[in-house]
């Protein structure tokens, strides 16, 4: 008995000693980028998509992928650094801001990464970017959308993705466009047919921010809101919340939900035979593979804002080619999550190439001056250039844009782009067809 305990305790001691010792790796010339993502915990499914996207991008930078049509595919390592390879050092954030900050410290000082990428949840991004700011190490954030993040005036923080304010503006542009008859395949709809709006948002940092933005824009653009509420996330049951939406008799339902809640909400609405004319989800849960895999045909007609969709291939052949490789690797189509971390790594590659050094100051300068034209990206964006697109923003990509997708023809279909209207890949299904 005593020996057993001794064994356990000495195991623990040896283990901690082993890990305490710095590990030196003498591999070939490489540039380490630390990536903090929610790889365990409730958001792990999304974390996996993000990770796959980032890994693919690093692979494309490091190896030659002929015929894709974007510059990084022709690189073998980063040309500006003499072909140094990008090495992504992943770290699990556990969805815990404190844990995220500690991992950021570890990556910065122990792993000696030249910069950070991540961290999806805005709360984790907040603490992790504080560490980067203090250490004077660039933090590129391709995947958090809380408007607060770019309003802090940080000098070492760049956000690639458009944020919630932006996406919400898109939503109202879309709604106004519907009224103006701009949507492909749908005649002008009277505003009264879509009013009032009913909004349900989960009660974490992100959902709260989304709800605020929707309420703000609705007021600005003159849309009435019948119900707008936050609900407790990771719920055991969302029947009454769905009932509240259905009971409001609003024709337009707007959601900000992570995947488990999104599934429950759709199931509950189906159960209640809710008949809205429009269902729109604020990304996250509504675009997760698990969402449509789980719900199958029930997702048809649901809209979600996004930054990427596989059908982009129709208008952007580069995206199609990347998607093919990605699908071979992970079994899924590229989606908004994987695409965002893909582009995060791409921004890093371009910044490193431009800086021609891994010195933080040089990288800071390179990132500030970065200007990637839209044709070099797989995103339907005008490019990547950091500035101040909305009042108060610093180091926020000005040239990004969002899209709104609609699930069509599931379980075998694909999300089709319906907004911006000029990029639409399919006719909008309106009104929402209901559930069988």
């Amino acid at each position, binding site marked *: 008995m005593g020996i057993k305990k001794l064994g356990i305790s000495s195991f623990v001691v040896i283990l901690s000693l082993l890990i305490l010792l710095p590990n030196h790796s003498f591999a070939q010339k490489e540039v380490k980028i630390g990536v903090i993502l929610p790889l365990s915990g409730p958001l792990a499914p999304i*974390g*996996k998509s993000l990770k796959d996207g980032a890994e693919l991008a690093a692979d494309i930078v490091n190896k030659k992928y002929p015929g894709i049509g974007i510059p990084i595919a022709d690189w073998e390592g980063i040309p500006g650094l003499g072909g140094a390879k990008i090495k992504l050092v992943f770290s699990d954030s556990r969805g815990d801001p404190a844990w995220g900050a500690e991992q950021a410290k570890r990556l910065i000082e122990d792993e000696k990464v030249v910069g950070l990428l991540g961290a999806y949840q805005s709360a984790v991004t907040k603490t992790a970017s504080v560490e980067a700011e203090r250490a004077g190490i660039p933090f590129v954030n391709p995947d958090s959308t809380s408007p607060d993040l770019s309003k802090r005036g940080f000098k070492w923080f760049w956000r690639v993705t458009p944020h919630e304010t932006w996406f919400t503006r898109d939503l109202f542009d879309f709604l106004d466009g519907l009224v103006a008859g701009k949507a492909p395949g749908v005649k002008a709809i009277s505003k009264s047919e879509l009013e009032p709006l009913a909004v349900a948002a989960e009660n974490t940092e992100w959902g709260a921010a989304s709800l605020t933005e929707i309420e703000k824009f609705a007021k600005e653009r003159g849309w009435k809101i019948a119900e707008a509420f936050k609900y407790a996330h990771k719920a055991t049951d969302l029947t*009454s919340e769905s009932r509240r939406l259905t009971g409001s008799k609003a024709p337009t339902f707007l959601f900000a939900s992570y995947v488990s809640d999104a599934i429950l909400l759709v199931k509950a609405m*189906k159960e209640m*035979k809710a008949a809205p004319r429009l269902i729109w989800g604020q990304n996250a849960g509504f675009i*997760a593979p698990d969402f449509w895999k*789980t719900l199958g045909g029930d997702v048809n007609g649901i809209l979600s804002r996004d930054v990427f969709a596989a059908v982009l291939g129709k208008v952007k052949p580069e995206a199609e080619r990347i998607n093919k490789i990605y699908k071979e690797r992970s079994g899924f189509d590229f989606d908004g999550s994987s695409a965002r971390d893909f582009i995060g790594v791409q921004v890093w590659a371009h910044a490193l190439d431009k800086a021609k050094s891994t010195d933080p100051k040089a990288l800071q300068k390179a990132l500030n001056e970065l200007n990637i034209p839209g044709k070099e990206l797989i995103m339907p964006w005008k490019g990547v250039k950091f500035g101040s697109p909305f009042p108060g923003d610093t180091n926020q990509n000005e040239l990004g844009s969002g899209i709104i997708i609609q699930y069509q023809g599931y379980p075998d279909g694909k999300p089709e782009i319906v907004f911006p209207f000029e990029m639409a890949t399919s006719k909008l299904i309106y009104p929402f067809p209901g559930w069988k």
Partner: protein
Amino acid sequence: MELTVQLLVYGILMGLVFALIALGLSLIFGVMNIVNFAHGEFMMVGMYIAYLLSTYLPLDPLLSLPFAAGAGYLLGIVSYRLLIHHILRGPMVAQLFGTFGLMLFLRYLAMYIFTPDVRSIKEGILVGKTLSMGWINVDASKVFSAGVCLLAFAVIYWMIYRTKLGRALRATSIDSEAAKYMGIDTKGMNALAWGIGGATVALAGALLAHFYYVTPTVGMLFTLIAFATVALGGFGSIVGAFIAGIVIGLIMVISGQFVSELKFSFIYIVYFLVVVFRPRGLFGW
């Protein structure tokens, strides 16, 4: 009126499922005074069994119910023999701690095997079917689940209060020392309680899988609800678990309608108020 009826129906249907989840926890506590943090994880195992059987075998998820219950029974017995039996002697904190370890272990074992993906059952006789009655549309599988819950409660109640085995279980729960002298195999009874506890909660899981998603981290929240349910009803009381389950279902649905953000708070506050005035819960002894 419409609203009231809808809320009542949804609340009671959900409450019955909570009651079935809580039943096993209450039973285990009644027999050996231990709270099982891994209870929700037992449920998760039931959910995965229903999911796997209905997805990879040509079985209707309804047919997976006995398998889930059986697996839950085995899991309960195995956990008892390997872990619980050893921690029973220790202080209460050590017990909480041990079952908490079991919870983490099961959860992350599931994570290891199944990845964190969210899944759900897509096909089945009842899956996705809605019953309409006047104002109310309800998921057929929820109605069925409620029926199974009632049946399970009836069976367990009959077993505990009408059979010889049940008498032995009750004797163990009242005074395990005395029961031992009377020739009752108290260890066997403890294991049995864990087996039945595991079986009922895994059964609840398999039912829940009909209309809920399945993921390794699904258990914790249900564990907390089950704690509040059992404590509200009174630890060890079967009737208490039943009534408290429905009460909690109703609170959840009603508060969800009005202040969704605080709906768990209402459950906790109601629990708190009840136990302050009745320190042993509604039906505790």
